[in-house]
């Protein structure tokens, strides 16, 4: 039977080749662009996290209102490249493979009481639990992440966000953690240790992604570049399609507006969810258009999925390109802050859901235009 199946697989492409006009060189060039942008996105994320780590070190060694603000500003800046890098999720890549660091970097929603005190529970969390956790170490925080429940998030961007901002109890603004949490509070030293440790871990985990996508190394990138181009293109389109249609449109936007609950917003402590949405959408555009503007203003670009689809079917290509524009526009049009927009501006929020789902569906069309033989999806 196996032989027969191989016969089928060899025969199938001949029957399916209709519409597949992009050359193997073009496909490989688009893969190369994809890898280049992945590397640049993660390198920018890493460098911004280094700046964040330095700001956090400065804050914990001398906690003042201005050093706290500097750390918050650095966190916001660090989210900009990372949000764009999420276009590399759901693509069978290193970020979410079995050993991938995604859950250690960007897990959310986060149960605040797992980390630190919350309104009504002054002794809650790892920070205030010296009996159970006498020493706050990197190993401890990693071992506690997502233990027992998905919301038991101990590390990553959102743990840092909560430690910097605190609970968002404000109708109009973000969380407002008192500086005394890091000065006179009984557990100030433990909190500092927690913040500094999880910031260090962010660097460790982002470095894994930088290494995975670095050029000229024996790493995931070298594996990726040897993939059958059809498989690689499928991974690329699956990643941005899933982010657009499901993860961003539904998980990160629709659920929050449907539940009318800021607990369902991505960066709920800092009120930065609008930037999460915009940078995710920008990341999708980066991958599809094969062009990424780096943090330093330079641009990485090359042969793109957009080029391949246009060559294969210009009508489909035009349609997808217009959907990319529409998704970027709609994402940027959500009023700020997001936790008020889901109450007061639902039409604008839902328009972004529509636009992102339209875009996700159009990537399916784009894949078909590329003549990707969808039967190879079947398991061996």
């Amino acid at each position, binding site marked *: *039977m196996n032989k*027969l199946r191989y016969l089928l697989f060899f025969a*199938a492409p001949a*029957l399916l080749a209709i519409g597949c006009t992009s050359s193997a060189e073009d496909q490989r060039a688009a893969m190369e662009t994809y890898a280049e942008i992945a590397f640049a996105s993660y390198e920018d994320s890493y460098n911004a996290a280094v700046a964040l780590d330095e700001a956090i070190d400065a804050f914990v060694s001398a906690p003042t209102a201005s050093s706290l603000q500097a750390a918050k500003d650095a966190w916001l800046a660090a989210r900009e490249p990372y949000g764009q890098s999420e276009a590399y999720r759901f693509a069978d890549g290193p970020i979410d493979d079995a050993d991938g660091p995604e859950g250690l970097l960007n897990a959310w929603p986060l149960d605040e009481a797992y980390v630190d005190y*919350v309104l*009504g529970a002054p002794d809650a969390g790892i920070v205030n639990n010296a009996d159970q956790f006498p020493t706050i170490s990197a190993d401890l925080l990693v071992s506690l992440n997502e233990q027992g429940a998905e919301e038991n998030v101990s590390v990553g961007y959102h743990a840092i966000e909560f430690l910097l901002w605190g609970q968002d109890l404000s109708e109009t603004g973000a969380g407002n953690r008192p500086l005394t949490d890091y000065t006179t509070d009984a557990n100030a030293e433990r909190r500092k240790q927690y913040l500094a440790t999880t910031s260090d871990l962010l660097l460790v985990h982002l470095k894994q992604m930088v290494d995975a996508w670095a050029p000229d190394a024996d790493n995931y990138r070298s594996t990726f570049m040897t993939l059958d181009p059809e498989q690689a293109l499928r991974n690329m389109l699956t990643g941005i399609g899933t982010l657009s249609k499901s993860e961003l449109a539904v*998980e990160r936007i629709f659920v929050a507006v449907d539940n009318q609950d800021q607990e*369902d917003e991505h960066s709920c402590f800092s009120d930065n969810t609008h930037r999460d949405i915009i940078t995710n959408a920008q990341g999708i555009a980066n991958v599809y258009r094969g062009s990424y503007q780096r943090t330093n203003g330079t641009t990485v670009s090359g042969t793109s999925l957009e080029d391949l689809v246009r060559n294969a079917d210009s009508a489909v290509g035009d349609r997808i390109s217009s959907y990319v524009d529409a998704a970027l526009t709609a994402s940027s049009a959500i009023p700020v802050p997001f936790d008020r927009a889901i109450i007061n501006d639902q039409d604008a929020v839902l328009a972004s859901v529509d636009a992102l789902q339209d875009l996700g569906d159009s990537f399916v069309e784009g894949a078909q235009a590329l003549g990707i033989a969808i039967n190879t*999806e079947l398991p061996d």
Partner: protein
Amino acid sequence: MFGFFASSIRSVHPSRFVHGLGVLRYAVLLLVPVVLWGGLASCNRAALLSEVEPDEEFSGGRATVFNRSVNAFGLPAPGLTRQEERLFGVGNSFFNQNWVQSPASTTARDGLGPFFNARSCAGCHFKDGRGRAPEFDGESPTGYLVRVSVPGEVDAIGAPAGDPNYGKQVQNNAILDLQKEASVVLRYEELPGTYADGTPYSLRKPIVSFTDEAYGPLDGLAMSPRVANHMSGMGLLEAVPESTLRALADPDDLDGDGVSGRLNMVWNAAEGRATVGRFGWKANQPTLKQQVADAFHGDMGITTSIFMEENCTAAVPDCATQPNGGTPEIDEDDLDKVVLYSAALAVPARRDWEAPDVLRGKRYFREIGCESCHVSKLETGRSDIADVFSFQTIRPYTDLLLHDMGEGLADNRADFLATGREWRTPPLWGIGLFKTVNGHTNYLHDGRARNLAEAILWHGGEAEAAKEKFRHLDADERAAIIAFLESL
């Protein structure tokens, strides 16, 4: 983070494949005999080939996904409408996220307890998959609970009568202000046996008891431990017409095959009367919505439109006076979203369905009589939940009926018409993926079987004859059956 992030693109492909490439595939199936006649194959291979059925890999019909990853149970059925997909996402958020004690700032999800087994659905159905029994003393159960009742007594709706102190289920957690009911203690006794070819095996028989009983002794009760089931394909099972189940039933074994098959008739709260049961290990829930509401109520202490009263007994007066999260604690439309989510989790496609050992195992599975209860193929009717489940050919390997499974598996706790020896035939789709998704290979209602062979060897009662035939197969034949089951 969530099971849902499954690719909508991935899930669209296979169904298009059916429509777009079906002709090609049938062409290949027709070509196959020609190639085989070319001298490649023995008669045996040709016979095996005839085991391959068109589209059999689509276990859930259109609601099948091709995914063998850790997220294999968490993907939405292909073909949901865009609105259904969105509500699936909301249902997923309610399924995954922890409920908290009232009062709380998290008003959408407060009302946990007062007594509970888990804080979220996913706490037991991790990755929408199969729970397991605790593995060591003190391990907090994740997807394992014990139902209790007064032997021989039923309540006003015909359900097993709960214990006056503990109710119908022992909750091993409570909110801060109350003591949890009790902790379960699990021991096993090894029961040695041998296959007909002399190969030894051992089955572990669970012995359940309690400690830390806070509200009086838990003695003299009927006890039935249960693991959380995987969530695949329930919208499809709900859409199997009642007439199909009635036709499969053979309560008096009129066909004389030694296998009866009975319908459970259970209280249907929405209709205010007894109707056919089809969900739960004893088919004691009539609809998916009531099954979900019962799990909210019994396992998490969350009230719904169906079960409005807190899960309290008169023996613990402090229970009913605790602050609650509203009446009901989950709104009707949110409950419906969790029901849609539960219905719409797709069935994973078969793996390796054309492999020779799998095909041999499939034939043996049929020949030794497993399909008398594990009915391979059913047709759905019109679904009230979503069109994607309507009029599908599905391969759940169940008849959804009750069967006497013998003394070894008996929980001796009757549940509506189900006797203490009867269990519902569980669907087998997806059972080969527990290891990938949930990191174990424990089977049966209380997770006692450590692998599929042990699960088969526990079969008794109406399944005794099939079990004995399995025991008399040689090692190669047994391995083929296991390979087949793992492909489901």
